[in-house]
Each structure stands twice: as C-alpha cells, then as structure tokens.
C-alpha cells in the first residue's frame, strides 16, 4: 500500500501516541507499522560491502592481487594477530590455514612462540622444508562471526587444510542479540533462576556452534578441504572463581545472611584443610542457589582434599560452567555446552576434532590440568602448546595419508623450539599481571612471579621495580618515567602484553595484590627495602597531598577488571559488602562525605567501618541522602586504610517485577543492593 507524506506523518503521530500510552508491545507496534508501507520501502536489505574479499583480517589485497599486505591503517589491531607482513596468494607448498582465538595465538610469548610456529616446525621436520606453509590467521578476541567472515575471504588463499582453535569466546557472542531476545512468555521474578538462565544460554550456544560448523562444511569440506577443530581446555586446577563471580546471589532475608555465613565457613574450612566442614558448607550453599559457581568450587576443593579426583574434576567443571552467567565480565573459557555441541555436530559435517580436555586430562597429574599446561585460564604454556600441536600434527598427517609417524619423534620435533629465557621470564610476569587484573589471588600471582624469577632474576627484578612505581603513580602508566625505562629495555617485550601498561582510560588500578607480591619477591632478592612500596603509595596517594580523594576512582574502589558486565556510571553494589581504600599520614582526623541510596531494597541500612572498627550505622533511603562523618585520628593508620561497608537489607524489592527478555532476567538475578553517587575523603 502506498501512502502520501501527510498520511505518513499522521501515522507516525498515531504510532508515537500508541507507544507512549504503553498499551502495546513492540510486536503490536511493528504490526501497525506494516500498514504504512510507502513506495520508498523497496530498498535493498543490506548495502553491498565494497571491501568484501579485499581484506583477510588485517591484511589487504595489493593492487596486483598477488599478495595480502598488512594494512598500516589497522596498526592498532596488529597486536591481536600474527606478525606476518605479507601473505602471498599462491605458494608452492601445501598451505594450512590455522585460525581461531587467542588460544591459537599463544598469548604472552608474542610472536616468539606460537602454535603455528610449532606446528610448522613439526610438519616441516616430518616432510622436509618443502612440506607445509602454515598461514597463521588466529586473532586474540576472535568471535565466531568474525571467524566466518575471515574464512570466507581466506578461501582466496586456496588452503589444502584448515585448523580451527576456538570455543573459548563463543559465550561473548551472546552479548548482542541473545541478551535482548524476548522470553517465550513474560516471567515473574519468582520464577527466575540461574539454572533457568543457564539452560537458555546453553541452548543459544548449541545453536551458535551448529551454524559455525555448518558454514565450515559449506566453505571447505564440500570443496574437499579437510577441517580440524581443536576444542580448547580450561585450567581447572589453577584458575579460581573470582570475587565478582562469587557475588551475593539474589536471596532475601534469612537466606542472605545464611549464605554469607556459609561462604565464610567454607572459606575458613578450605584454608584449614577441613574437607568435612568444607563439603558440608558447600552443600548447604548449593541448596540455597544451585547456579552459583562458588558452591561447586568449594565442593571441588573438598574433593581435592580427599583425593577424589574424578569428583573434583566434575565439580570444578561445573563451577567453570556456572561462572559465565553474566555475573561478571569473566574471562574466556570452554563451556561444557560448547564442547558437547562441537563433539555432537562435527561428525555430521565431516569435521575432525581434537578435544584438549581429554588430551590434557590424560597427561595431567590426577587428570586435572593446571599450571603445568596453562599460563592462565585457557592460554597454554610451552608444554601445553607442544602437546596440543603434536596432536594436531598427527591429525594433519593422517589427512595427508601419512599414518605411521612415531609419536615420540613428533614430540622431539616439537621440543626443538623454545623461546629465549628472557621471553619466558616476561611471559610469566605478564601472566602474573593478567591473573591479578582478572581477580586471581596471591597463589596464582606468586606462581608466575617465581617462574619469571627462575628464568631471569635480573630481568624480573628490573621490570618489577619499574612496574611497582609505574602503577603506583596516579598518572596514566604509559606517561610515567618508569614506563620509559620498560620501553627502552627491549628485553621486556612490552609489545607482547601492552595491557600491562595501557589500562582503560580513567580505569587505572593500584594493583595492590600484584605489587605486594612483586615487592615480596624483590625484598627476598635484596633489591628493595621492605617498606619501600608502602612508602611510595603513601607519598603518591595521601589525602593530605590531594586534599580531597574520590574513593569511587577505580584505584580506591576496585581490585581487578573483573566487574559486572553492564557497568553503571556511578558505584553500584551488587554484593552486600563494599570496600574502599585510602592513604593518609594519620596525623589528623579526616572527613568523609557520601551520597548514597538503597533504591531497590526495603529497610536498608549501612554499617561502615574503618580498619575493622565500626564507625557508623545508618538507615538508608530510596532517595539519595548525604552522609557526612569524621574519621578520628585514632582510627587511622599511617599508609593504607580500609573502609568496609555492609549493606544490610531485609528484602529485595523485585517480587512484583516481570522479566520480558534475557536482559531483564540478568538484572533481576543480580539485584543492586545500594548505590553511591559520590564518596570522598578530605582533610
């Protein structure tokens, strides 16, 4: 139906009125809009992408069409890809495309040591130097959609085989359409649970995997090009559930108090090696919320204490599977649903699979892989990469009809390449930083620092000294003198992990756990005085120096980048505990000011303590209220001081709320306990 502009205007006005009235939903409005289709509606669905085929990742086709050259305009993206400057379209060797996520890049080793390098070496050692050319198209942070687009264009390189190393990032593809997707029918808050959300997530991931494998089949398998899918594994023994992932669940009243007590009991029991109490507390936690990763992790730890390896593995896998429920930003990991879907669909599409989960379990102590194979949650160390690439080589050689190669021989080829000691040293330091920035505790940080010092005590000492000073400054790290020292020392290879210095804008952390661990290593090495780091922090951050300190700055209110994935501009507490730090010379009393509210909870109150001593208890309002308090000098400590707040509340005000889409579900399952608009300490 064609309509005039005047009718169109009237229609728009009526629709606006209808939407504003709140009487209809989106579907109703879309239905109404169909009635107003004009002649102008006949427009192509999508504008043509003029660049299709011109780019393969960061490489742009040259004018002759003979090579793809790394595009300087995309220089900020280079760090995510292999250090190839040029990819010729034709090669006289058998070309194998290796693509995937950061697990395929070999994180922390830069371009010195990667899966592609090891695989190429193994294959060439078997077949001589004319054997294979591995074209490394893996990219840190690659999503399934990106991978398909890349591979669509990469067909121009005429590969004879394709290897995919992916699966850790698939969850992150759900942040777009999935979380805005409508539920089959609106659900009341009481009908929601983490378990229900997880079922929807698993279903969406299954579909995502199916589409991906279907496309790989269309692009390559049907053309006679074998595809091998390497399913990554997770650092089950080493990578722990973070504080954000352990955030207080959506419980009310007595259950909330009980949850807090049980978690504390469990943590204490774990520290004391009391597996009985740990297991008992964990089971009680599980009864309160069956979707919380902390409960499963506690059960796993209890099983480990009892040497019940199979049970421990199952619990730790379940903990892993329950972390990514939009409670925190989290870090990439292979979820059981993704692994199972790949294993389910791959045979249908004639795609070979290598399951690192199984491979590493078979080679790990007690069947639970940890730091012996991993640099962090999913990125492998040298041992892990070698093991994995030998398995890939076996599959590749089988696909080429070479079926009788000695496994020992392949392992010996893989072991012929190793990065220099300095590169190993820095890889472990960067892994330590990565652990700290992502909410891991002292054990993990110290493990990697010790590894780094064992590879090169001198380089680790120089770097850690500079790093402590660099991050302690309030100034953006890359503008500091210490960063210049790191940059000028080429052995630090800062380009392998620039995130060590390039923090988010206005998001610099103080890295207390990390710099404490570094300090301890340096003190032990006799490189600094024991009190040096504390003195540096005080000289840089003292309230007396700045007169007013904003405690909502990340340096004073956060300990890692593992935060709630949908951040607010101001401080929102989803846990019932909040902590802040500040620094003072403690020569005078200080003044605190806070604007806070408890909009979503009934009968809220806050308990505020300074350095463990109670300072005030205050009822909270649903409206912003100002709180003003004095911290007496007697409560202060020279150096770092800590403010702890417990947000007390009787019940969350969500019982009558309805979830219409996944986004609503996430919000209702992660209720806001309190909000702070301003929080300062001043002299």
């Amino acid at each position, binding site marked *: 139906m064609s309509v005039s502009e005047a009718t169109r205007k009237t229609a728009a006005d009526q629709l*606006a009125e209808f939407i504003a009235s709140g009487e209809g939903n989106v579907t109703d409005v879309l239905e109404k809009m169909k009635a*107003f289709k004009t002649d102008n509606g006949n427009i192509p669905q999508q504008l043509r992408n003029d660049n299709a085929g011109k780019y393969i990742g960061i490489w742009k086709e040259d004018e002759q069409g003979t090579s793809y050259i790394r595009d300087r305009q995309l220089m900020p993206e280079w760090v995510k890809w292999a250090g190839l400057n040029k990819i010729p379209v034709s090669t006289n060797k058998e070309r194998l495309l290796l693509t995937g996520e950061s697990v395929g890049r070999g994180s922390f080793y830069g371009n010195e040591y990667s899966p592609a390098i090891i695989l190429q070496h193994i294959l060439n050692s078997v077949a001589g130097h004319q054997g294979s050319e591995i074209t490394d198209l893996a990219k840190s942070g690659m999503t399934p959609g990106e991978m398909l687009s890349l591979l669509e264009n990469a067909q121009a390189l005429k590969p004879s085989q394709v290897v995919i190393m992916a699966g850790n990032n698939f969850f992150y593809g759900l942040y777009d359409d999935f979380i805005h997707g409508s539920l089959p029918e609106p659900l009341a808050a009481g009908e929601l649970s983490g378990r229900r959300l997880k079922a929807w997530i698993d279903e969406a991931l299954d579909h995502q995997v199916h589409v991906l494998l279907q496309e790989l089949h269309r692009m390559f398998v049907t053309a006679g090009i074998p595809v091998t899918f390497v399913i990554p594994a997770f650092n089950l023994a080493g990578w722990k559930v973070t504080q954000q992932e352990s955030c207080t669940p959506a419980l009310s009243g007595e259950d909330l108090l009980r949850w807090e007590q049980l978690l504390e009991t469990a943590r204490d029991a774990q520290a004391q090696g009391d597996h009985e109490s740990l297991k008992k507390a964990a089971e009680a936690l599980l009864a309160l919320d069956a979707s919380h990763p902390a409960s499963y992790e506690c059960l796993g730890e209890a099983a480990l204490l009892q040497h019940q390896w199979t049970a421990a593995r199952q619990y730790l896998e379940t903990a892993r599977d329950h972390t990514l429920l939009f409670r925190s930003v989290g870090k990439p990991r292979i979820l059981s649903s993704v692994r199972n879907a790949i294993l389910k669909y791959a045979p249908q599409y004639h795609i070979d699979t290598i399951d690192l989960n199984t491979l590493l379990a078979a080679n790990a102590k007690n069947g639970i892989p940890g730091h012996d194979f991993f640099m962090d949650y999913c990125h492998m160390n040298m041992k892990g990469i070698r093991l994995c690439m030998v398995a890939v080589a076996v599959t590749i050689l089988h696909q080429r009809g070479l079926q009788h190669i000695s496994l020992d021989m392949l392992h010996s080829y893989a072991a012929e390449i190793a990065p220099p000691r300095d590169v190993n040293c820095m890889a472990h330091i960067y892994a330590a930083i990565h652990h700290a920035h992502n909410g891991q505790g002292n054990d993990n940080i110290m493990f990697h620092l010790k590894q780094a010092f064992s590879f090169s005590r001198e380089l680790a000492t120089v770097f850690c000294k500079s790093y402590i000073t*660099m991050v302690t400054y*309030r100034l953006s790290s890359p503008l500091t003198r210490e*960063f210049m020292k790191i940059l000028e020392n080429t052995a630090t290879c800062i380009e392998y992990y*620039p995130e060590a210095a390039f923090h988010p804008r206005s998001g610099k952390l103080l890295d207390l756990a990390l710099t404490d661990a570094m300090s301890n290593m340096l003190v032990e090495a006799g490189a600094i005085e024991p009190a040096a780091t504390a003195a540096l922090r005080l000289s840089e951050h003292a309230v007396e120096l700045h007169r007013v300190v904003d405690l909502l700055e990340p340096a004073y209110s956060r300990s890692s980048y593992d935060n709630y994935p949908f951040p607010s*501009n101001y401080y929102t507490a989803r846990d019932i505990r909040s902590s802040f730090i500040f620094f003072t010379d403690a020569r005078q009393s200080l003044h605190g000011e806070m*604007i806070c509210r408890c909009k979503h909870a009934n009968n809220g109150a806050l308990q505020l303590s300074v350095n463990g001593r109670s300072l005030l208890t205050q009822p909270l309002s649903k409206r912003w209220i100002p709180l003003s308090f004095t911290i007496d000098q007697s409560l202060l400590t020279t150096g770092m001081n800590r403010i702890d707040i417990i947000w007390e509340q009787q019940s969350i005000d969500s019982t009558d709320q309805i979830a219409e889409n996944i986004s609503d579900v996430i919000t209702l399952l992660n209720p806001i306990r309190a909000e702070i*608009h301003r929080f300062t300490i001043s002299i």
Partner: protein
Amino acid sequence: MNILGIAALYHDAACCILKDGHLVAAAQEERFTRIKHDPDMPYHAMQYCLREAGLTIADIDMLAYYEIPRLKLSRQLYSGLPEVSNEILRHLSPDAVERQIAEKLGYDGPVQFVPHHLSHAASSFFYSGFKESAIFTVDGVGEWATTTYGTGIGKDIDLFEEVHYPHSIGLLYSTITSYLGFSVNDGEYKVMGLAPYGNPRYMDCFRELLMPGDGGQYQLNLPYFDFMNSRKMYAPGLCDLFQHAARLPESALEQFHKDVAKSLQVFLEEVLLEKVKYLHRKTGMENLCMAGGVALNCVANGRIQREGPFRELFVQPAANDAGCALGAAAVAYVTATGRRPPEQRLANACLGPAFSDEEIRNSLRGLFMKARNFSNNPQQLTEKVATLLASGKVVGWFQGRMEFGPRALGARSILADPRDPDMRNRINAMVKKREGFRPFAPVVLEEKMQAHFDLNLPSPFMLQTCQVRSAIDLPAITHVDGSARVQTVNEQTNPALTSLLKAFDRITGCPILLNTSFNVRGEPIVCTPVDAILCFIQTDIDCLVLGNYLFLREDNNLDAVAHIYGMYGHQHKEAISSQLYTFI
C-alpha cells in the same frame, strides 16, 4: 533553586548547572570521555558541573531536558517508517529518556522537557543581555521544527512560526557536506572553509534544491534527498543535478567541489538574509538572537551582521545542540520562579574545568617529560612564550577554565605566529593532521582590532568573519578571499591570553596570534593536563604551556612514546555516524 540543563542522545551531549539562575558551569560530555560528539547521557559533564557548583545530585531541584521525547518519537517514526526494526523500536520509547536520566545520571527528581528549538532560542536570548530581541533558530532538526522565528521580551519567548522536517536548510547543508565527501555533523566547517576557493557557479542547482515559501517557510525538493531512508543523505538525482558523482572521502578536491561549496555558502547566506529580513519585518525589533547549528556558520553571521536589518546580533558560543542545555535550564528557571535568569550578556564561554598549578603538578607526578616551572614568575613565562611564538614555534596553550562550545577561545588553544607564510600548512599537516585548505582564525587584542580587521564590535566568540585590513601581512590567518574569523580578547575575559598578545605585540609589533583548537583531527578539544600532554606527544607542537609550566619538545624525546601510543593507546572514536544525520 538548582537546575541541571541536559542535552543528550543525539549528538554533542552537554550539561550545565544554574544556581539560583546563575550559570555556574557547562561542559560537553565528549571532553571527558574523549569520544568526539559523544551523545550519551552526560554523566561526566554533570559530575563536573556539580563539583564546580559545590553541590551533589541530592541538591538538584529540577532537571531540564532539551527536547520533547514524545514529539521527537513521532518524527523519528516518520523518518523510519516502515523499516524500523524491533531493536530500534525498543530504544524509541518516549520513556527511554526518563529511564536514561534515572539510570545513567542517577537523577530521580522532577524533569521538565523543553522543546528543542525553544531550548535553542532560550540559550541565545537569555544570555544575550537584550531586554527584547527577535529570535531566529536554524538547525538540522529538533522534534519536528528545523527553523523557527520568534521574539523574546523579558522572561517570555514566543516562537510564532516554524518550518518543519523534512524541510531544513541545515539538512541541505549537511547533505551537500556529505556529497562533497566530508562527515556529516562535523565536516560542515570544512565546506565553509572550502567555499572561498570556489565560484558560485551552481546557484541554479541550489534554487532547484530549496524553494522559497511564504513568510518564513521554504521547502526542500525531496526527490534529491535520501536522508529519510536512513542510508545516506543524498539521492542519485542530486548527482544528476550537479552532473557529477559524489566525492569519495579523502579523495582529491577538484575545482568542481570548491564551486559547489561556494555556491552552497552563498545560497545559504541569501536564504538566511531573506529570512532575517522577514523576521525583522514581522517583529520590528532592533536586536537579533540566533542559535542552532547553522548559527555556527560565521561567514553567514558576518553577512547578517553587516547586511541584515538588525542593529545588533548575538550568537551564543555553543549555538549547536550542546548549547540547548543552557536554554532548557533557563526555561525551567523561568517556569519555576516566574523570573528571567539574572544573567547579563554572556561575557565568557569558559565555563568548564580549570586546573591550578598545584593540581597540574599533582596530576602529573611521575611524568617522563621535563618541564620548566614559572610558578614564581608568570610574567617571565608570558615573555618566554611570546619569544618562542615570535621565533616561529607552535604553542599548545592550556590556561584556566575550558571553553563551552565547539570553539577554542584561548583556554585550550594552539597558538602560532600569523605572519609566517608557512605556518598554515605546517599546522594543518603536522599538528592538526587535517586538510591543507582549511583556514585558521586570528585572536586579536580587542583594543587594536579595528586597526587590523573590518570590525565595529568585539567578537569574543569567534562567530563571524570580516575582512582583514591590517598593514601587517598575515598569511596564516587570512583566507583566500581576504577574510578572517576573528576572536577579540580583553583583560577582563582572558587576562592570560591578553598578556601574551601584548608581549607578542611588544616583540613583533603584531597584536594578533593564530588560534586554533587544541586537538588533533578526530579528537575532542583537550580537557585535562593529561589530555594536553597526550596531544602534545602525538603532534608536532613545539611547546606546551600548562598553567605556569612550560614543556619544550627540544627538552624531551617523544618519538618512542608517540609510536607506542599510536600502536596501543586510545583510538579515535566517533560516537555518531559520519555518513548520515542520525534521525532514528
């Protein structure tokens, strides 16, 4: 009575605060987030305004928002029918604005929604100092209005006539901007700067594109435009009309493009002059207040001032949407108190954050660069900087409160010697990293303006052009047609820059400096000392003055850090589409 004024969710989000009617602070969100034209709810700008006013969110009595969401929704739906997707619809709800105010700003008190063009009008009239004035607002589009005519008398504003979307002279300008290969909402200045290189050969084409109507009305010839389909600004017919394909971004500029730019500019000036005359006939008033994005066209403003019927013209320095925050807040004040805001004429556009020497020192502790400290002798710094400028150095100048609005007016500026014939090319290429044809503006001591420029009244906000008539050869700031976009300064409004100009005048006999915004292409103007340092590192600026600290490039090796920042540092971010005026 504490009122927050907010403009957001379109482009150039901004916040201001009125304390008992007095304008205490105003800033654009982009300056804090470093996302050019950031349209998001201006949380960071709001926090700054609250701090500056010594208030908290709990102290705010009213929030004034710069448009009516329900009316805008109607126009948005009209633009998008019938291709609006499920996803877009979810964001189109008129409740979305109130929800975002509550969620993103944390404000849960009363909100007054003020019509977009009334916000524009108020942003000019209530800060003009005029007791009564005609008011003319022209922009791309508000809710439905694209052009309005009205009067302001005391506390009352009456907009008596409107031109409605899709007929918009602002959108005509943006469409041609896009056709000429520049970014919409950003490249309009480039078209204005390109125009003097061309000849008005295509006036007939423009008369085909926009047809006059009765009174203040006019109409676009819609088949030549495609912006309603949300794909691009112009329809294929436009290329046929000019018998020339659209220019690809970054491709060579030919004489044709310059001629189109010139024709557009002349046509705009003619239309605006005609409409201003109409407004004068209708109101009989002596003063004119202008606002809206089109009012940033300083060449047209200059002609309206010189050739128009009004005795005096006031253009508010943030005449674009950012300035609507000021207008909305003023309207809310009038509604709440029944009184006009007590502001006299806005004397100074520096309404943003300032940094004392102590704050600069504390925020840069640990900096790898060497600086010279003149805290004990600021006059010596002034003399030193004047000497550096006279010797051909380019200076980043960071002093006092940041400007509100798109112009750098001597608080966050890059300064240079206007007499140097190579200076324009050097700054365009090495410092600003932008197109070589673009002109630079002069800043001149107010007391000596008439000796060098054809100006009768001070021009504190750089919002009109005039002819250069100086005995000094000023190639770096004189455009190809002999014009310049002049800013005048005096001791009261900018003492630091006035001192510098005097010192430069003493050394060179020239009381004029080249003045351009302190940023690089694709980035907002710098806000903080750290922003200034980053801009200094990544450009070819020779010296940086931060308060009373002087950084010299020759004292510092910046190459390595500039390179690594290029690799891993922040990337330029554009918050809005550069191909299309975003209607939905």
